[in-house]
């Protein structure tokens, strides 16, 4: 028998600190697989966020920066401008990318920096134990909205992909999910396309990944992936919003 699937080489052989069923582990693996397939491990720089994925550099076997909260795109910009031959990507959660780092997130796309962002949207602040995030759905319960998010007091969830797709500097914008094996395959394709867009020098690329957070949603892992499909995917439609023109 031959091995048809094993751990990607760009992923250190260590157990992660994530909760059981967390989508971060799947997304780390997909990024590592894409780095292996494109054979860019020696020239990739990752920028880790603040949030659950703050220890990204313990898991991915590439050079990593640790950015201040929300400022990963700014650091990635500097790195990419000094070393245009490197592949630079940021890995950010929804608190990092859509809340404190919105200014950086919008302007990095407006400037058309040739970097990639993997944006993990789990509709809640995971690391700080389940407060409302800008991406929390209407009616969703969190520790700061115990009766469910109400638009009168807490406003409406932000759809980052749609916002970034309106900017001419963004070359590839897609939203995927990791709730089933089929969606995982599509997520990997999108992450690969985003990296290829950067390597072809076409502009900014963003992949938003809808991820499950069973612990802070107070669900079992299986219920949480169903919730992603049934609730989150309705408000955050999956698909590609912007694709570079084929030459």
């Amino acid at each position, binding site marked *: 028998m*031959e091995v*048809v699937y094993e751990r990607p080489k760009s*992923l250190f052989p260590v*157990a992660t600190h994530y909760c059981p069923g967390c989508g971060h582990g799947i997304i780390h693996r997909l990024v590592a697989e894409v780095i292996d397939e494109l054979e860019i491990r020696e020239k990739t720089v990752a920028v880790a966020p603040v949030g659950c994925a703050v220890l990204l550099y313990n898991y991915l076997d590439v050079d990593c920066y640790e950015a201040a909260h929300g400022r990963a795109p700014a650091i990635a910009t500097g790195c990419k401008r000094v070393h245009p031959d490197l592949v630079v990507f940021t890995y950010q959660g929804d608190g990092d990318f859509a809340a404190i780092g919105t200014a950086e997130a919008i302007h990095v796309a407006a400037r058309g920096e040739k970097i990639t962002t993997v944006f993990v949207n789990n509709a809640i602040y995971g690391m700080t134990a389940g407060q409302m995030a800008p991406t929390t759905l209407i009616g969703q319960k969190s520790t700061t909205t115990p009766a469910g998010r109400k638009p009168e007091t807490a406003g409406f969830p932000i759809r980052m992909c749609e916002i970034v797709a309106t900017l001419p500097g963004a070359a590839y914008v897609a939203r995927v999910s990791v709730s089933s094996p089929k969606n*995982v395959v599509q997520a990997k394709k999108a992450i690969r396309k985003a990296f290829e867009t950067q390597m072809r020098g076409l502009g900014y690329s963003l992949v938003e990944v809808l991820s499950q957070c069973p612990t802070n949603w107070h669900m079992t892992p*299986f219920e949480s992936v169903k919730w992603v499909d049934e609730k989150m995917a309705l408000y955050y439609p999956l698909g590609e919003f912007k694709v570079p023109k084929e030459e």
Partner: protein
Amino acid sequence: MTGKIVINEDFCKGCALCVNACPQKLLKTAKHVSKTSYHPAEFVDAEGKCTGCGLCALICPDVAIQVFRDRKAGGEKK
């Protein structure tokens, strides 16, 4: 038997996403407790039904599953 999987119990956190992903229902949550205090997933394939499709490995958040498949059984390598 055309395929099999090996689960790394040091990494498995017993989330059971693979249990629901397996089309042949060959995975279950084990009764015993692993070193990391979780009930890991357990692979039980007495009749040799596993085809090595790898859906369990695709959904595994902890990259704990290694998939093997017979060369003769067909299917392209990913």
